[in-house]
């Protein structure tokens, strides 16, 4: 090999390394540094663990963490919905292609748009409550948006509505790649629908289900900003009832101009998601090994 051809691969990956280094590498190193500094403007003096102490001593931070954890409750519901719909689509029941186009729609619509729409639908005097009252279910006509004990559950409904579409997409992709002879053989054996689902289809989908669960956990802990920002009126409201860790970081950085505090919270969020990403890789490798 000539020296120039030995250099060629590095020339090809150079822009890639530079871009990833700038957008991921630099920030991921810098959050650790900032988290130990009292940053005013662009830099500041080292202050040890003071940022962490301040955050961990703040009830608002713990409330945010608790809200993120509460959102995890949405995941079993999302898995169940995604499983049922994707399995039915994969059976190619009459009209499945049209159904598929429709059930993917939530994933194509932007979160902020849907959040604005849902917020109006769930207003106290909005159509959802009007419908409930019309069905004589007055006791269920809650103040979905304005009550601080209900608001986060309402956000959860929106999250389930949209993130289930991702589950359907994922599961359907896996199901359509399955060998049909297995399920066909079970059909001839006379196994019923539920038995086939439980004993043959779900075991085959274990990898993709685990993958979806881990991705969803990361979403609930660290990627719900768009939902919360719109539904909670930009402030995690009413009060602090829909405040989450992402909004805490956003507020510390933009509204209070305390990058050090924001960085320390980012470090904690990064470490938690880092563990989950490690898990994700194990899950994926296992999924690939069984395929």
């Amino acid at each position: 090999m000539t020296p120039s051809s030995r250099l060629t691969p590095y020339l090809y990956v150079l822009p890639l390394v530079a871009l990833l280094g700038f957008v991921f590498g630099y920030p991921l190193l810098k959050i650790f540094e900032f988290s130990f500094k009292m940053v005013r403007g662009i830099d500041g003096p080292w202050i040890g663990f003071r940022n962490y102490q301040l955050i961990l001593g703040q009830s608002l931070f713990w409330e945010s963490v608790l809200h993120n954890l509460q959102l995890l409750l949405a995941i079993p519901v999302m898995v169940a919905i995604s499983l049922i719909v994707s399995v039915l689509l994969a059976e190619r029941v009459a009209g499945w292609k049209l159904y598929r186009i429709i059930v993917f729609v939530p994933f194509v619509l932007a979160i902020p748009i849907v959040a604005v729409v849902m917020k109006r639908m769930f207003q106290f005097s909005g159509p959802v409550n009007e419908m409930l009252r019309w069905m004589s279910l007055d006791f269920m006509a809650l103040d979905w948006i304005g009550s601080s004990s209900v608001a986060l559950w309402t956000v959860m409904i929106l999250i389930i509505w949209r993130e289930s579409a991702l589950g359907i997409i994922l599961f359907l992709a896996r199901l359509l790649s399955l060998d049909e002879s297995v399920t066909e053989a079970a059909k001839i054996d006379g196994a019923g629908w539920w038995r086939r689902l439980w004993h043959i289809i779900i075991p085959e989908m274990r990898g993709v289900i685990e993958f979806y669960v881990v991705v969803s956990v990361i979403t609930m802990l660290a990627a719900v900003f768009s939902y919360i920002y719109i539904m909670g009126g930009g402030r995690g409201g009413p009060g602090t009832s829909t405040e989450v860790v992402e909004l805490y970081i956003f507020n510390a950085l933009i509204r209070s101009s305390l990058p050090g505090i924001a960085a320390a919270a980012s470090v904690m969020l990064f470490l938690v998601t880092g563990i989950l990403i490690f898990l994700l890789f194990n899950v994926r490798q296992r999924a690939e090994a069984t395929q």
Partner: protein
Amino acid sequence: MSAQALQPGAVVKQAVLLIASFLALVPTLYMVLTALKSDAGYAVDKLGFPRAPVIDNFRSVLVDSPFLHWMLNSAVLVAGSVILSTAISVLGAYAIATMAFRGRNTLLAVSTSLMAVPPVVMIVPLFVLYTRLGMVSTYTGAILIYAGLITPFSVYLLTTFFRTVPRELYEAAHIDGAGQFTILTKVVLPLSMPALVTLVVVNSLYVWNDLLIAIIFLQDDAKRTLMAGISVFSGRYNNQVPLTMAGMVIASAPMFILYVLFQKQFIRGLMSGAIK
């Protein structure tokens, strides 16, 4: 087929899918129907079809709010970041898939794991840096960040795809005396159109729909994206529901039209894109 349709099981299955489809469409239906009502009409009837459809809401939205301007801003960001990321990823993924060099596996592993890092973790240092460099509220600054955020997925998808291209094709081109770059542009890329379409669909959707980066890094009114614009717009017209819905119809129209026109590409893109 007809015998199967009569089975009770088939009826239940149809019913389940019908309900799921209805729920998936409810917000869209509500949005469109409400946008066609007057304020008075909405106050009387929040659920039904508009008795006397009006288009005034759409007119006021387009006259009073810079929706088209916001859309243009979003389009600039989508185009800039998707083109930049695709070019960089094609080069990088081609090297990873076809050339032997030190650090190749590490690069792919690191890049792939970055897919799962939530964007919120990166914003603090980038914002501080951009403030110092005067890059807050610049297209260049935001395009760089978006391009970076979508690149790990692009590299993963393209590397996987390039590895499926038969080796004989490369070797034949090599023997013909073609250089690496010629092989990439003349042999590999024309074969890669399906993967490239997937990338463009998934990545455009990401950038177009993003709110977090947009409100932090494009604070200037003139640079506001559609999603950031929506959050301002919906706050301002909080009590005028039909007007707000008209705005949402306009905001969702571009992606909706693209989805209906290019269902096949979207569905294929989402299904292969989802397997990250």
